[in-house]
């Protein structure tokens, strides 16, 4: 039963991921992406990781895709502008499929030995307590590094978006209104 549910969800995930990539309208892709995130969090629920499942939805479906839709609405892209009407570039497609196949093959080979090394999940697996303890105690270094990287990105965005008060064209607007 559980196995059937897994294959059903995994199949739907592949389908929605394909639709994200191949639908002509960007907003339609965004909708399929939301469905994809829902299905991903279903997989997390299957393995009992409730917290990760909900955070997956909160962060990706609740914030990131909202930003994507925001940009799509703002740009109002036409379907033609995106597809471009060109034929598929065969070389890059073949290269991509080969590398994807290689990665999947490596995963297939290495998974059994990795599974042996994994500690058995405790009874509190997936709860917020267990999750936070693992993240703060066992992986605190990587957690801090990731946080620092995000902080750097934030400062970078601030620098890019910052305009000096003198260059903000107040004078220009006033001139225009006077001319009118």
């Amino acid at each position, binding site marked *: 039963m559980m196995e059937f549910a897994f294959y059903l969800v995994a199949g739907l995930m592949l389908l929605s991921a394909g639709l994200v990539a191949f639908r002509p309208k960007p907003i339609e892709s965004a909708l399929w992406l*939301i469905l994809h995130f829902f299905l991903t969090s279903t997989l997390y629920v299957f393995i009992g990781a*409730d917290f990760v499942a909900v955070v997956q939805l909160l962060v990706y479906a*609740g914030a990131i895709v909202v*930003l994507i*839709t925001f940009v799509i*609405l703002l740009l109002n892209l036409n379907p033609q502008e995106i597809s471009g009407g060109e034929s598929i570039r065969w070389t890059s497609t073949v290269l991509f499929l080969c590398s994807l196949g290689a990665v999947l093959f490596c995963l297939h080979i290495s998974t059994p030995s990795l599974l042996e090394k994994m500690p058995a999940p405790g009874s509190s697996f997936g709860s917020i307590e267990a999750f936070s303890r693992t993240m703060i105690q066992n992986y605190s270094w990587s957690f801090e590094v990731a946080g620092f990287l995000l902080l750097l990105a934030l400062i970078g965005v601030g620098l890019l978006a910052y305009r000096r008060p003198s260059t903000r064209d107040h004078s220009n607007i006033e001139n225009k209104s006077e001319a009118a």
Partner: protein
Amino acid sequence: MEDTTILWLFLLGKIVLFFSVVFGAVAPIMIWVERRVAGLVQDRYGPNRVGPFGLLQSLADGIKLILKEPLIPQGVRKPYYLLAPILAVVPAALSFAVIPFGPPTTLGGMFETPQRLQIANLNVGLIFVMTVTSLSVYGVALAGWASNNKFSVMGALRASAQMISYELAAGLAIVSIIMLSGSVDLMRIVESQAGLWHIFPGFLAFLVFLPAIYAETNRTPFDLPEAEAELVVGYHTEYSGIKFGLFFLSEYSIMTTVSAIAVLLFFGGWNLLPGLNWADIGIDIQNSMIGTLIAVSWFAAKVAFFLFLFVWVRWTLPRFRYDQLMGLGWKTLLPIAIFNILIIAGFMVFA
């Protein structure tokens, strides 16, 4: 252990009760209250003809909306146009799933162990509510885009920007409450307020949380997505009949959800008064049927007060300008919320 059939029936009963109360009673009554209070504030009557005090006005309006011709304007993007109201109402309904509306109870001895008055017992309850309310933006965004109308798109854009901005402030305010109660299970959060309500240590958090939930529900003074004076009515300009009704219903049911969350997080849920519990005045809310009913009604009364506050604020305060809205969210509420986390952390270490 209990008989599983009875437990399933109890669960079904909770679902039916909660949904029929919220969608069938709270939302229509709130719409009536809104119009009557608007009348009171503006020194006129408001709806007072249908039924006693006009109470059946919402029923009449609901029947009208359902019976109205399902009009689909030319030039809309049809599948998305039809999908949008559904996407607006589903998160509103989903968020009720984890809201506890009373103490764990044996219903006057019907059960051996106390049962939760909550539809689904998720151990991540509070985060689930935050997630689901943040998903409600898709209904608005899609409605605006699918309407193929510049005013609707403007409304949708404003809604997405506003919801992202204020979600952060609300989330950070909630973090301090999670720190105070040491859990994200809403039931446990209420239990942790048996002595001291979180409003006292978390007053700053409440000051951030309240404007943030007003902005998240797109209510005045933050109703820029549907600013009548600028955008016709924004994202639902092209909607009529029951499709408009669904947007309307989802607004009022999300209002109910966030009011309930405000009571659960800051005002002690069904606890009697700060420092005074039901047990102190001799009411057993766990084992006696009447005690449970009293506790549930007390919780409902607190939620009703917050719902009234929503209406009161709407007809008192004027609408913000867009840059003021963004400035308030990012430059005032967000820093206060972060500062508040430090204060709460200090409070917990030293007190």
